[in-house]
């Protein structure tokens, strides 16, 4: 399983903060993003979100493997 975390407007649209997806083989971050939206529906703004893999920012082309946590980070607004 790959654990997906959603925040702010993305979590609001999905109706949840956590989604699990089973991946047979390794997938890219970008593929996970597509699979996520197949499962929970189209998420407006997710293309503008950064992606963190196990709490570190990564690129869309990075590989995700079983047990990983993928977080979609919409533009931040702390402070």
């Amino acid at each position: 399983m790959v654990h997906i975390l959603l925040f702010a407007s993305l979590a609001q649209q999905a109706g949840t903060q956590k989604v699990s997806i089973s991946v047979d083989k390794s997938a890219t971050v970008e593929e996970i993003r597509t699979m996520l939206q197949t499962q929970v529906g189209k998420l407006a703004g997710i293309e503008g979100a950064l992606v963190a893999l196990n709490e570190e920012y990564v690129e869309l082309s990075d590989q995700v493997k079983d047990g990983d946590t993928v977080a979609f980070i919409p533009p931040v607004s702390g402070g």
Partner: protein
Amino acid sequence: MKLFNISTEPIDNQNVIDQVIHHNAGAVSVFIGTVREMTGDKQTKLLEYEAYVPMAEKQLEKIGQEIEEKWPSAKTAITHRIGTLQISDVAVTIAVSTPHRHEAFEACRYAIERIKEIVPIWKKEHYTDGEEWIGNQKGTQSYPSGRPERVEK
């Protein structure tokens, strides 16, 4: 208490300050972000802050490391509150100590700018006439390259 902290409790400014005071500090610059009522003609009733807590604390720590690289004698502590905040509540307190004052101001200013760039915390404004998740206070609508300027892996 942790130097870099995401907290659901009200922030005690003095606790944050105490963590950076030491015998060779001569200057402490503190930044306190509070909940403001009016933004243009919008009236805020309350705010909600949400964070990706473990990663947010790591990113705050990273900001502390960046500051030490730029200003080697600086010591930094940051606490950001999450949850529901009322008008005038403290959302974030940053304290940076240095031997001399110029570096303290510069480093503290650097910290708040970096928080608004790389720390996964989000603010939802509850206005008198609706609510909205606020994104990207640095002014760009999204990160076209897939990552914000200066974010590093």
